[in-house]
């Protein structure tokens, strides 16, 4: 059968204002379905977003502490025990997608007062460094404890940039976030391994290479994927450090 135009069929010509009567109803129904359909799609797509968790900036809980800056191999602040509170080690990041290397390198030798804003998700805390001042004279005499080895581990999980995942961006993980994480690491933000199974009740690990040095670009193809990593875990006060052998890394999905 071949289709044929007929004399009586409605014929729409766009530049004529008169739309054939038989078409008006059809077009109105279409317009309502089109707009309504988009509205329903918006509701369905937006209200079912995956939960990005509770990470976030702790603006109301500014950080100010005296401690010692170390490169392990990323900058960390070692804070001495104070009465009941045990000694703590905080991971550090700069403003935006920048690390805190310059402040750490400048103040490596003596105690400092560090001000900043914590970014926190559960027991993952990253301090966004505001100001670092060397403590003049009379500084407390404090030697941070050495790392406590916890053995060799094979862990599965995701390598995230520690700041976004801690809550600087919600969500700050997953493939959609891969390029951002890459950019964060390039800028000096410490990589954090988010393990699917805990080691001594902890799931977040600051990452280093197997000799405890900075990890280079070889980490980038592994970012934001579900991977299996192998290496030594050690504890610095309350901070877990994962010294991974990236040559043995496997992408699981």
């Amino acid at each position, binding site marked *: 059968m071949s289709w044929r135009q007929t004399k009586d069929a409605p014929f729409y010509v766009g530049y004529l204002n008169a739309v054939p009567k038989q078409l008006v109803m059809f077009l109105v129904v279409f317009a309502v379905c089109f707009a309504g359909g988009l509205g329903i799609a918006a509701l369905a797509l937006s209200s079912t977003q995956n939960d990005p968790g509770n990470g976030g900036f702790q603006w109301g809980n500014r950080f100010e502490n005296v401690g010692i800056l170390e490169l392990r191999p990323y900058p960390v602040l070692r804070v001495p025990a104070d009465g009941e509170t045990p000694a703590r080690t905080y991971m550090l990041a700069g403003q935006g997608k920048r690390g805190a290397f310059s402040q750490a390198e400048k103040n490596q030798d003596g105690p400092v007062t560090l001000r900043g804003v914590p970014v926190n998700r559960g027991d993952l805390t990253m301090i966004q460094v505001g100001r670092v001042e060397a403590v003049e004279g009379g500084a407390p005499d404090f030697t941070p404890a050495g790392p406590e080895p916890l053995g060799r581990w094979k862990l599965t999980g995701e390598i995230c940039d520690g700041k976004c995942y801690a809550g600087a961006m*919600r969500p700050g993980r997953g493939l959609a976030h891969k390029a951002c994480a890459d950019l964060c690491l390039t800028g000096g933000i410490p990589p954090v391994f988010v393990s699917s199974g805990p080691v001594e009740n902890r799931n977040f690990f600051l990452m280093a290479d197997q000799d405890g040095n900075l990890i280079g670009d070889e980490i980038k193809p592994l970012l934001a994927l579900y991977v299996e990593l192998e290496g030594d875990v050690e504890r610095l006060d309350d901070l877990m450090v994962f010294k991974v052998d990236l040559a043995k890394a496997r992408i699981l999905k």
Partner: protein
Amino acid sequence: MSVQYTPVIWNRNKIFYDAVLLIAVVLYLYIYIRVAPGFEDVTKPIDGAILRMRAFGSCAFLMLTVILCIGPLARLDRRFLPLLYNRRHFGVMTAGIAAVHANYVLTWYYNFSPTDKYVALLSSNTNYGQILGFPFETLGIVALLILFVLAATSHDFWLSFLGAPIWKALHMFIYAAYACVVLHVALGALQGAGDPIFTSVVAASVVLVSGLHFATGRMEARRDRGEETAKASLQEKGWLVAGELDEIDDDCAKVVTLSDDERVAIFKYDGKLSAITNACAHQNGPLGEGKVLWGCITCPWHGYQYNLSDGRAPAPFTEKISTYRLKLIGSTILLDPNALPPGTHVDPVEIGEAA
């Protein structure tokens, strides 16, 4: 259809079209960004920039889906033809929405860094060798560039400047853009933590767009076979039997297929017959599915008009299409399959008593 390429000739239909479009888009964005988060089940809401980025990205994707469905829908059911009339506004608006999406990505994921954000966009993930973790943003960039080029060349000025064949070929890249967007989403958002609704929406879009195109292709092929009578039966040397007079309504046409890319529309009007090519000089619209209005063949797509006897658009327009010679024996219409140069005058065949 503007003589001096004055920007746009507005009329009530276009305003209505754009108004519906705008209302639908604003409704989508408003519900996505403002209303739906109230129904979310999350510990802490996702970042506003990311929510807006997703709202604009998914909006552009859905719009692109609808744009690609309009063509086949209008072929399957003529009542959809009015949607085709102003489709360029739809396309331009889609490009704009997609650009807002890209801008949110750029000023959020690629910002706040010592690296320039444009450099970061191209350099921060270069794992082109892997499927998981592929830099899906690049596919978005390609799609956006295509949408921009098409939006920029959508005006009739470019159509006339480039010529219909090149313009048409250029605008076929819309399918490449769609493919890039589907891959952009499939390698990006869909690889994340399972989101069955978004996955179903994307799958439905792909099934709808390809299904409609497939169905339309089959229908056209079937129709061509139905119209092929002319090719088969040779009545008199050099003339083909095109059909019977009573097959054609007054002021309407019968379409005859000569070969894959050659179809002829034979119009009946005022007791006369004239034949012209079926392809409109504007965007290859099917003239044979149009009608004779005010003594002119009127294209069903955007209303371009041509005189029946010479295939020339009425002054001041200058478009020309090929004409064909006809002959009538009794009530049987014969067609000379050799197209005459566009704009050639052919005396219409008088129907006389045979009618």
